[in-house]
């Protein structure tokens, strides 16, 4: 680099810089009048309201989670398929939440049971969401609708917990609860014990429900996380119908996936 170039570059740059010196003033400090601009201001930044915000920490995110999509091979009962999915859309504190479960025989016919819940969910403490909404059954009783109020979150001991109270359009009250625990065998092999119960607070003869525990299921699934979002699994599931005093045990193979 030649010295003359440096000098000419220097002079020129100084000339270019002069206007900014005028605005900056005070040895490169801003003028005190510029701190609070004229006109409407953003409440958060104190900058002009028509500027973008520096960041958008209230953005909407979403998740769709197919927790179980499985084939069930039962001894003594027809083989069946099952889905258990849910998803949410919303910000950190408020979310729209949906949940759907269904089960049916492999060899034709309509599902034995299926339903959809639509819920409003609100964070009430660091680990818990309070949820309220409606549930529609499609099978076996497509006319049954419920109001739902639930609590979903992570309980102490790292139990993924989903509990709900249902009030049918006839005024019958029932409850459901699910608990899952992830036990890491390695960073990718995960053993998941799972328990699900449903109970009724009164006899509902037209739907064959007795007061008390109606059904329960315990399962153990071993999944492999190909990536966090995709994990095939195998497992066993033991279901008990307390109203009819029947139980079935199934070997299951399925897929857990989310996005």
């Amino acid at each position, binding site marked *: 680099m030649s010295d003359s170039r440096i000098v000419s*570059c220097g002079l020129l740059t100084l000339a270019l810089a002069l206007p900014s010196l005028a605005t900056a003033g005070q040895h490169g400090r801003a003028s005190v009048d510029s701190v609070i601009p004229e006109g409407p201001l953003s409440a958060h930044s104190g900058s002009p309201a028509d500027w973008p915000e*520096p960041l958008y920490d209230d953005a909407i995110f979403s998740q769709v989670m197919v927790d179980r999509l499985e084939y069930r091979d039962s001894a003594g009962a027809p083989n069946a398929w099952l889905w258990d999915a849910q998803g949410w859309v919303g910000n950190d504190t408020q979310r729209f939440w949906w949940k759907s479960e269904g089960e049916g025989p492999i060899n034709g016919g309509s599902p034995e049971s299926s339903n959809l819940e639509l819920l409003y969910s609100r*964070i009430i403490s660091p680990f818990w969401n309070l949820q309220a909404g409606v549930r529609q059954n499609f099978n076996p009783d497509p006319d049954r609708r419920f109001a739902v109020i639930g609590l979903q979150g992570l309980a102490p001991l790292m139990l993924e917990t989903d509990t709900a109270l249902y009030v049918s359009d006839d005024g019958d009250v029932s409850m459901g609860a699910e608990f899952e625990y992830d036990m890491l065998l390695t960073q990718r092999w995960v053993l998941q014990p799972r328990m699900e119960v449903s109970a009724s607070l009164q006899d509902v003869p037209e739907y064959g429900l007795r007061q008390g525990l109606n059904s329960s299921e315990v399962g153990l699934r071993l999944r492999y996380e190909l990536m966090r979002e995709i994990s095939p699994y195998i497992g066993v599931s033991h279901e008990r119908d307390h109203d009819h005093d029947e139980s079935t045990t199934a070997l299951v193979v399925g897929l857990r996936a989310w996005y």
Partner: protein
Amino acid sequence: MTSRVTDESRRRLLLALAGTGALAGLEALLPGYARGAPLTPRAGNAAQVNGGVPGPVLLDFDVRRERVAIAGGHGSGITINRSIPAPLVELWEGQQAHLRIHNHLDEDTSIHWHGLLLPFQMDGVPGVSFPGIAPGETFEVRFPVRQSGTYWYHSHSGMQEQKGLTGPLVVHPASPHRVTADREFVVMLNDWTFDDPHRIMARLKSSGEYYNFNQRTVGDFFDAVEKEGWAATVRDRLAWNNMRMSPRDIADVTGATYSYLMNGLHPAVGWEGVFRPGERIRLRVINASAMTYFNFRIPGLAMTVVGADGEQVEPVDTDEFQIGVAETYDVIVEPQADRAYTLVAESMDRSGQALGTLTPRPGMRAAVPDLRKPPQRTMMDMGMDHGGMAGMAGMSGMTHGASASKGMDHGGMAGMSGMNHGASASKGMDHGGMAGMNHGAMEAGGGMGPVVGQHGPGDHGPGNINVAETLRYRLGEPGTGLEDVGHRVLTYSQLRNVRPMRDQRPPSRTIELHLTGNMERYMWSFDGVKYSESEPIDIVLGDRIRLVLINDTMMEHPIHLHGMFMELENGQGDRLPFKHTLSVLPASRASLLLTADEPGRWAFHCHLLYHMDAGMFRVVRVAPAEVLSHV
């Protein structure tokens, strides 16, 4: 004529770029993607600091999104003047800087000059200091350079810094360096990912542990049983599981997606700096990553720390230091032997490392150490240890009520009595006699700093999981995972300014902020309040204030104030070191002094990119009282 100058400056940048490998011999060793015409997009950047004749500087920055060859692959990145990282900028103290940013993206952009003192309108934070730079627009930054040292620059828009828009910035002093060197290199550290940062954020919002592949397993359980017995192991597991936290939660985003780069080059290539044995070399280490803390060391070579966050400190000899995101350290090394030395920048969670080599001959390599065992958090990081809290004495004036421990018998504690706010404990407080503190989680080793406070009432709402009940002074600690490395490790308490404090007034006001978060929902905030729920923090121009940072979370946060240096109350009397970014350890209480002499609206935030974007951000407004009262 203007354009001629521009071309000249461009040429200077390109020359600087070529300087990486100035070292023509080295070029041949680089893989294909790092070679070729200077104008093809590439990774790998000027690392040799050229210096030269002082003068004003005019530079053009062309911001583009393009496909780059980087980290052993190809991906979409954001380049400046066709380079990732962005080119080295050299400015001169006492001279003008004129920097023109041309936005060729189809989205807004911005450049923030990290650590520089300048009029706030030039500071480059969209929505705070200016509206941002729209596509196709040019923004001209002009300011007189009022300082010297090692800094850096990066985009403050749309997570662009994660996609490559970061660059080193060196300001040469007006008068000769106090500390001389025969050769200077920038060592810039980055965490590169081929993923879209918005997708990374979405994943974290769904699962905070998405990138953690070092969680506790059944195997670890039985290992612990073998070492500590059933009772202790079960108790420990229950304690963590009850809190619904993991002691292995060290980094939110890890080597599972990141490649760690040194001067833009990934470890398999490795950056290379050539020296002559016997030379004094200044390394300007810049952590320009989005989320990664690094442990920096040069096996076989001692370092002398002479600068921190761009400002000069009294020399400290050390073997390793932890560098938080956005911090810089200047170190002097004097390799005497005719051999190569490996520069190791290991990510704090030990999921990967950035590597480089100082070598007398191009191509020569030294041994590369294996990654060390990942660290674990302890109950003390959670602020959950209640040991040794008896018999508090002398800590008058502490905001959270006095709570130094009698059980901690070590000499330095005497110096605590009567200390204002307790955070300025003396250097004498080393980790000697923590015996009285014996509590299950203590075996982390190295020892934790003394208890200096208790958390007040309040849990900061659903956006905060943990409340650090027991707060410690932790500036004397080497940093997570460096407690037992068997050699010297730099601590904050060792940093001593070369100059006495200019403003000796006692602070007239204390501002206390809690660092809060909810890992389960990936929410981050101050005092449980996100930026979008916050109001500016107003400070009267010219006031001397004390800023107290209390970290309720179980992880470090590098807290950065734009536009003004803070003085860290680390027990160095009137030689408190300047900081623009302070890494606050879990369950600790740190305090800083600030003379608010720069009018403006200044960003104040956690420099972990995804924490900032989740809302761990505030605007600090500095103006005369009469101006502020009119808002």
